[in-house]
């Protein structure tokens, strides 16, 4: 496999931002085709990869296309031709790609997409929230969330293993927060090129367009007679991916010492109040929980590491004995509850557990969320527990200027 490219000597600890960490994971995975289009804040992933290519560390093709839609289209064509394919994007780029996201998953192409989370216009804004992650939430892509550059590096390597597994064959998104992760250089402990490639393994072709002994037709048309069964099989593969994800995380822990879980928890075991959140907010919430624990308050934090497929049963198990759960959604909900709120309440509804569950909308367009704000959110939930009821409404917009915004009144 090293036939036409140089191996790179890496330090035990490198200082990489999230984008550069992605670029090294893509390089080490020996991606065959990267088709990509620049957009802030994910551009650095592709620029980093292009620099590895320009210096002889990549022997695959880079196709710099004219739009994100074309980027994913090219990845699908390449994947159908037996190539390991990957790309990166954010925000509007993901929005333009949406049609092809559904085509990629429906055609069962195990493409990896490095999604650097950024809000969706309008208003136009390059900063981060989870609007793009949420936009892809029903697209049939496995969606995994990283909080740090190192996590993104690790999870991009894992994503190839997961998506390409013969029981799965689905595309995988690896999320990280725009700027907060993508542009903040932090310690990353990379694997050696050899260890990383040995972990990811050779790409296993399925029905390649370039296998002329066995001509295949990709991307058929169906009517009502077969469409339903296609989607059922696709969804079944998604549901069954959980086992593969756990196996891959287990194996990765053995070679890296870093263990990922379907759902990450921090101080949750005996917690009365738990914040559910994703991305860098999970890190800030952990610091906040430490501070409040020192004050004797029983608080914890939970993050779905695997956002899709949704871990309904595990969520229910982990939250069964809590007194309050605060679901923090970093995306404008468009006149409904946030997705994490829906996931959590959906998980709990068919159990006997009845914690107070509230929904915080926060951090839109890169608005900062800090320890002070999270302390406030924890304390409000603790008060609600003491009062035995929510403080008037289910959904509250945190950190927005102007009059307080609260929705969905609760009685009693």
């Amino acid at each position: 496999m090293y036939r036409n490219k140089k191996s790179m000597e890496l330090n035990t600890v490198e200082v990489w931002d999230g984008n550069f960490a992605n670029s090294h994971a893509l390089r080490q995975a020996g991606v065959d085709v990267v088709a990509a289009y620049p957009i802030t804040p994910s551009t650095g992933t592709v620029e980093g990869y292009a620099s590895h290519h320009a210096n002889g560390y990549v022997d695959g093709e880079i196709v710099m296309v004219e739009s994100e839609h074309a980027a994913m289209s090219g990845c699908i064509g390449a994947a159908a031709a037996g190539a390991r394919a990957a790309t990166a994007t954010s925000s509007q780029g993901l929005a333009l790609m949406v049609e092809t996201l559904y085509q990629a998953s429906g055609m069962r192409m195990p493409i990896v997409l490095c999604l650097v989370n950024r809000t969706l216009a309008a208003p136009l804004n390059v900063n981060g929230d989870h609007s793009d992650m949420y936009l892809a939430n029903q697209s049939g892509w496995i969606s995994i969330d990283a909080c740090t550059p190192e996590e993104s590096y690790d999870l991009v390597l894992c994503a190839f293993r997961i998506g390409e597994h013969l029981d799965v064959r689905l595309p995988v998104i690896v999320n990280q927060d725009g700027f907060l992760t993508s542009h903040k250089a932090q310690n990353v402990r990379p694997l050696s090129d050899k260890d990383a490639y040995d972990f990811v393994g050779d790409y296993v072709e399925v029905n390649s367009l370039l296998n002329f002994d066995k001509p295949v037709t990709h991307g058929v048309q169906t009517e009502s007679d077969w469409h339903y069964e296609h989607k059922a099989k696709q969804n079944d593969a998604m549901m069954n991916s959980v086992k593969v994800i756990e196996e891959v995380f287990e194996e990765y822990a053995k070679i890296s010492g870093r263990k990922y879980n379907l759902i990450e928890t921090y101080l949750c075991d005996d917690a009365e109040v738990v914040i559910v959140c994703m991305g860098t907010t999970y890190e800030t919430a952990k610091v906040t929980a430490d501070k409040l624990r020192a004050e004797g308050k029983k608080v914890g934090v939970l993050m779905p590491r695997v956002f899709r497929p949704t871990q309904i049963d595990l969520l229910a198990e982990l939250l069964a004995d809590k007194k309050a759960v605060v679901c923090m959604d970093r995306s404008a909900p468009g006149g409904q509850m946030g997705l994490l709120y829906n996931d959590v309440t959906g998980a709990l509804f068919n159990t006997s557990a009845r914690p107070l569950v509230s929904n915080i909308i926060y951090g839109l367009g890169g608005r900062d969320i800090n320890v002070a704000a999270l302390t406030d959110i924890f304390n409000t939930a603790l008060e609600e527990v003491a009062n035995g009821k929510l403080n008037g409404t289910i959904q509250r917009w945190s950190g927005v200027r102007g009059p307080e915004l609260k929705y969905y009144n609760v009685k009693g």
Partner: protein
Amino acid sequence: MSCSIGGCIPQGNKEIKNLKSFSTSAERFEGAHVLCPGCAHSIIVREVLNATNDNMVLGSSTGCLEVCTAIYPHTSWDSSWIHIGFENGSTAVAGAESANKALRRKGRIDPNTPEPKFVAFGGDGSTYDIGFQWISGCFERGHNMMYVCLDNEVYANTGGQRSSSTPIGASATTTPAGSTSYGEKQNKKDMMSIMAAHGAPYVAQIAPNKWKDMVKKIQKGFDANGPVYINAMSACTTEWKFPINQTIEVSDMATDSLVFPLYEIIEGKELNITYRPKNIVPVRDYLGVQGRFKHLFKKENEYLIDEWQKRVDANWEYLQRREEARV
């Protein structure tokens, strides 16, 4: 006919001496499809596939060809074939072409085996309109592929809406002729010039009635290095509204009236006219055999026919001057 990745004898263009040798050549596009009786798409596609012995990776944009040839669990393609969407048929094939380069460089495909041909098909809707940007991108990047536009001047698959290939005066379902309208108001977009302006090594217009000219051009296209654009006139019995046994006759009138002149442009500059009709048919006669132009023969619309004839004359003059000037 097919060739494994492992290795096989070099192949290349097929020798086709006459119609008989053409009609007996191998079928990679099988008869099992549900295109309309009299549809020219299948004739053109067969000729493209039959022009070479090489392995082929084919793609189709969403459209008549795609929905009529790959209805699960059936397929008409005895060849590698991919469809993704309406606008990205070109990029799907470009992605496969990029994969081929990468896999050969890495040794996963033996670089000594013959290169396959990469061909994307699209209707005029996916070529002139919704897929225009994708095609432009593929040509600018120089993928080694052929793009064949099956140009029937209408969104036929969705029931006859106008595209930017629909000629002025045609009645389409979204630009219908009526008491206060003569139908489509815009002139057909000049895709040939646009694609030639990309600096493509080879750009050609073909028609199914001139099969020798067609095979020659397809083979020239396969021999070219880089992106090749073929604009294939595809007479549509359903939307042009002519009898299903008249496809070749209507096509003859299209090429002989010079509404669809047959020519090629090499390296974006050298223009060659490849067919000069002995008897030029009046545009009026070409329009007269198609229901989509029926209303033009009303007295108040007849000026449009005269204008059309003038446009065709001017274009023919232009093509001849371009040919002569060699620039």
